[in-house]
């Protein structure tokens, strides 16, 4: 750590934009409205967060007890002088677009294209919004939770086979699958048999 902390100062200035601050996992996250993201990024950069480390998205559609828009786009900023991190969060509904921050930060180019490719969140004003990593002929956005994982069945010597989809469903507690196990691998997902209960807040769970 070197230099005086700039985090508080910047967080306050983002609060003026309607940003809501929350601490998650030891880092400061500020949720800002989608239309204020460009101004928020501009202020953070002017305040000393000179490096855009990453832009990522999370699809909350299968997260237990999540209410609110389906996606969150997270902008990860870093200050190379004070070594502090700041995360800006923008909630995005399905089919909605986010203003691109490429005018403020050209380095956001590949990050935004990656989010667009893998989640299907469009960025308004991006100069070259194309797929980044998936093949041209792939339909859909792989990191959305409703995009199925393609797997091939495992065939055993005696003709028995393991169907990955039903095996996985068993692991997720959604149905018994072929293993017959309706365990709570995924906490918070109540299986049809009702053996799995939703955990209380912050419950780490014990095996």
């Amino acid at each position, binding site marked *: 750590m070197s230099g005086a902390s700039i985090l508080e100062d910047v967080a306050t200035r983002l609060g003026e934009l309607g940003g809501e601050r929350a601490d998650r996992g030891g880092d400061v996250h500020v949720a800002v409205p989608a239309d204020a993201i460009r101004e928020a990024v501009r202020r953070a950069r002017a305040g000393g967060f000179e490096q855009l480390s990453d832009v*990522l998205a999370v699809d909350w559609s299968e997260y237990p007890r999540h209410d609110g828009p389906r996606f969150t786009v997270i902008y990860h900023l870093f200050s190379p002088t004070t070594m502090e991190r700041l995360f800006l969060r923008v909630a995005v509904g399905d089919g909605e677009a986010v203003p691109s921050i490429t005018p403020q930060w050209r380095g956001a180019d590949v990050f935004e294209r990656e989010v667009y490719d893998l989640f299907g969140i469009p960025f308004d004003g991006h100069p070259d919004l194309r797929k980044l990593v998936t093949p041209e002929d792939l339909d859909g956005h792989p990191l959305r939770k409703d995009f199925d994982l393609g797997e091939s069945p495992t065939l055993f010597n005696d003709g028995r086979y393991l169907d990955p989809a039903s095996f996985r469903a068993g692991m997720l507690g959604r149905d018994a699958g072929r293993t017959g196990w309706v365990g709570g691998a995924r906490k918070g997902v109540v299986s049809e048999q009702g053996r799995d209960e939703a955990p209380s807040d912050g419950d780490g769970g014990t095996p």
Partner: protein
Amino acid sequence: MNADAPGRADVLREERHGDFDTKLMRINVGPVHPATHGVLRLVVDLDGETVMGATPRIGYLHTGFEKTMEHRTWQQVVTYTNRMDYAHALGHDLAYVLAAEKLLDARVPERAQRIRVLLTELNRIASHLLGLGTGLLDMGALTPFFYTMRERERILDLLEMVSGVRMNYGYFRVGGLSRDLPDGFEAKVQAFIDDFPAALEQYFAMFLENEIWLARTRGVGVLSRETALEVGLTGPSARASGLDVDLRRDAPYSGYEDYTFDVPVAEEGDAYQRFVVRGEEMQQSLRIVQQALTRLEPGPIRDPDRRISLPERHELETSMEAVIFHFKLVTEGFHPPMGEVYVGTESARGELGYYLVSDGGSMPYRVKVRTPSLPNIQAIEPASIGGTFADMVVNIATMDPVMGDVDK
């Protein structure tokens, strides 16, 4: 790709041709090309021999690791992390296990941390040796490649001794290590530490006093600190441009605050300094390896918490409880609490971080890998514009991208 890149190309054309109408030639480089370090494809605009634009097209090695990780237990994810950056595989393993341990609030024993640092730094040296050797190879210097491979081979032998494989180690576990070091490992590492400085001297002599090499790298592909920040460049390449950030020193993890080492930084930002910074980093890594080796003391290598680590083999014969924990860990794994964490580490290529989201389940809800190579290849274009095509090859080499790290 870069703010000043298109503008600079226009200015250059104006200078060279004035009102005279000229056309750029667009050529394709890669994805299968000896100078692109894997499957990087560049669409290059050329004005004669001068590069006017170089747009990376990536995705040829996209494997969907992040999606796959959402369908594996927290412990199984370690199998995938090291397959991204196969040149500095342990860096990825370390970043992931640190992030998962932060979620779990695990207490990793001293010995495990020391071994992690020791192996990660050895791997960093191996990665820089590969980058150095192939970088010189790209310039047409064939011989140094064989010398750097010789030393790299010794490191790979050491890592194979520990983990059983030469590339995708998967040796670290959430909560500690998979097994303890084999007998005789310390002595072999010490022998390497004793021999390596002489080899390093040899490398430095091979190119630092080489007139041709100096002509190919001095003042080539200059990147300013501003451009490095603009495109998100990190790691040795950014330190060569005066961006004095090394997360091992500035945001220590895994006990790096206990080690004495320097962070080589240069101001020039040219290909020469990008090579030299990597060379000096190897010396510093060697210092860390020596310190970690000296402080290595016997002790446990896993978090004793039964909810995270498998019980010892002998306990399974006497303790029913151990059998139950073993069964639960093997069949479904552990359940970190709900939440989000980010841990950033310094890999051989730059800032490598894992952003993990847990829904309380036995598999990650979302894994986002902040790989250093992806933003780093954005620096190829601003470094190359205005230079010759041959210089662009040097720029690619000195960014040292690993395509598995770019495409994930």
